[in-house]
């Protein structure tokens, strides 16, 4: 039996997460104020971080025996999809993944991750072989999670040196460059691929959320905006662009959750499906965000339209959760 649609319980989780994010972190929070500036933390305050912890999100997939809720990975992905829709910091899913890393090693730090006392952010190597990393929303983070091919490592923030701020393309996150000496020892490490797969799936789910949010925004506008005396969505040029967005979102949804289920049931082709999910969801997010801007016309080019938020988030997430070399070796390594 294959079922790619949410169960009733899963739908309730989706509704409650979506409701919470819509109330606390609506995408409109990222619109510039009268002075043209945005809140530096993109609305994700310490208080809100603790609130999220109290909802149990950081331990959603950790076993009940270890203090989590014991849900399968697809439930974590359903949450990640909503996070993507609302362009919430990737630190949330990084902390979710770090909890698994800690749980696997039977680490005492697990409780502080689940409880929201420790905040994990993403560190991403700038270029292959180098020791420079991008720290994403890293200011105030206790630890950094690094994914490289099938290996994940968690470092204490103090392992990074020479941290200097850079301007972020996605200005809903802060971005720093920092050095990680080759001699730095990780707090935790997993080379089995299990955590790496989770990180990649959570990224793909966020990309899916971006793709779906851009679709929704474009369709709402196309149905409301009138030119030549009718809604622009009645014109085939716009309608067909929206239809293509829907196809990409559907492909990303199906492949991402099929990959999640493959991972959950330990199918031998899980890595292949996860890599395919990354490729398809990254394309869907980027292509849909671009189309969304175009469908909005002039307003789509402004900062007050949310379309650019999705474009920038698509670029950011597209760089995470499965690098090119891994995608190639996984998708082209052998026959299916």
């Amino acid at each position, binding site marked *: 039996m294959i079922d*790619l649609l949410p169960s009733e319980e899963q739908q309730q989780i989706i509704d409650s997460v979506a409701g919470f994010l819509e109330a606390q972190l609506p995408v409109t929070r990222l619109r510039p104020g009268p002075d043209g500036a945005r809140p530096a933390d993109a609305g994700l305050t310490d208080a809100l971080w603790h609130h999220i912890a109290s909802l149990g999100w950081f331990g959603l997939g950790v076993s009940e025996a270890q203090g989590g809720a014991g849900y399968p990975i697809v439930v974590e992905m359903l949450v990640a999809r909503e996070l993507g829709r609302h362009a919430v910091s990737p630190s949330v899913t990084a902390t979710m993944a770090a909890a698994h890393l800690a749980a696997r090693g039977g680490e005492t730090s697990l409780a502080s991750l689940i409880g929201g006392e420790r905040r994990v952010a993403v560190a991403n190597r700038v270029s292959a072989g180098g020791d420079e990393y991008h720290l994403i929303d890293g200011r105030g983070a206790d630890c950094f999670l690094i994914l490289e091919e099938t290996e994940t490592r968690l470092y204490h923030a103090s392992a990074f040196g020479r941290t200097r701020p850079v301007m972020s393309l996605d200005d809903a996150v802060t971005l720093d460059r920092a050095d990680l000496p080759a001699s730095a020892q990780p707090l935790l490490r997993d080379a089995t691929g299990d955590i790496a797969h989770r990180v990649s799936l959570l990224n793909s789910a966020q990309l899916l959320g971006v793709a779906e949010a851009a679709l929704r925004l474009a369709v709402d506008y196309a149905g409301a905006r009138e030119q030549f005396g009718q809604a622009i969505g009645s014109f085939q040029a716009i309608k067909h662009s929206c*239809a293509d967005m829907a196809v990409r979102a559907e492909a990303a949804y199906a492949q991402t959750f099929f990959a999640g289920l493959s991972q959950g049931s330990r199918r031998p082709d899980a890595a292949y499906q996860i890599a395919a999910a990354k490729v*398809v969801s990254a394309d869907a997010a980027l292509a849909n965000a671009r189309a969304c801007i175009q469908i909005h016309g002039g307003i789509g080019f402004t900062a007050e339209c949310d379309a650019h938020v999705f474009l920038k988030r698509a670029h950011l997430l597209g760089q995470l959760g499965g690098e090119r070399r891994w995608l190639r070796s996984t998708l082209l390594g052998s026959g299916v």
Partner: protein
Amino acid sequence: MQLSHTPEEEQFREEVRAWLCANVPRGKRPRTGMALREYDLEWQRRQYDGGWAGISWPREYGGRGLSLAQQVIWYEECAVARAPVGGSTFVALSHAGPTLIVRGTEEQKRFHLPKILKGESVWCQGFSEPNAGSDLASVKTQARVEGDHLVVNGSKIWTSYAAMADWQELLVRTDPEAQRHKGLTWVICDMHARGITVRKIPTMSGTGNLCQVFYDDVRLPLANVVGEVNGGWDVSMTTLGFERGTAFIAHQIHLAAMLEGLYGLAHELKGPDGRRVAIEDDAIADQLLRLRADVAALRAMIYLSVSRGARQPVPGPEGNIVALCYGELSKRVYAFAVELLANEGLELHDENPDWLTDYLDAFKNTIAGGTSEIRRNVIGERLLGLPRGGR
């Protein structure tokens, strides 16, 4: 959400695999003519005799009455075993049969369904006309009621396999006064009836199964009407729902098998530099990577439509997403084949005729059964709720 096979499903897969291994026809399938018909019907008969015909059809009409999930398993194993799919039995198995099951009279079902399953009849579709393609509701082929018969005059076009078909799902205008889709009737047409002329249409791929059909006072019993007289639009939407939904499963799995063939080819053929094998070339590797990811996603999209199918027995407009995606992707896969073959692709010879013919043939995949443009209209209007507008 779940992905697990029950012990019954695993058992079913084992049975299917063993049977296919022993029974899949070995010879190359003829591309055209009565030889193709005989090949396809013989394969269908063999499936029936083995108890494998109509896996998801009701038992009372000779089917197995099994789940849609089991039907998917069947098609997956067919792909692994390289069993023939589609062809001249496609319309009967994937449109006419399912439409009759949902909308046919008891008599129609008892007569036609067993014949379809036993490999005794070939069906073709009679929807499009020279002046009614994408605008299907404008069909003009006339049928007037005379006593207990319909008398049909006009012409249908783009009818695959008409020259070898026994029956046709025919959409005719029974009320010339009614507006567009209101005066149409869906009727079962006997292709051997007096007054029918079939003209073959040569195609760009050289496969000769496409036809135009002419009707000159063709008499069809009123008992052959499916649904109500003047109620044919509704029935044809049911038919097209099947075409755009589950009916594509076999094609999609076939496409995945084709891409795997290309993956192998990329490891054998020399790449653009003339030294390394093609897969070592970055541009080729990137294209193959992308196609593999997209074909994987297509499979997941089938599973998604199967998931929906389990909750709504008659397919909705969502099937258009899969059909659109399949059409566009299949053209990309075959275009990649031609690129890989490079200069070899200019020669039709024994080693690569399938790639080249399939490449040319794939151009129909974004036209037949609804063009990509019409599918985008349906997705935009019926799934996304955008307003209908000028065409």
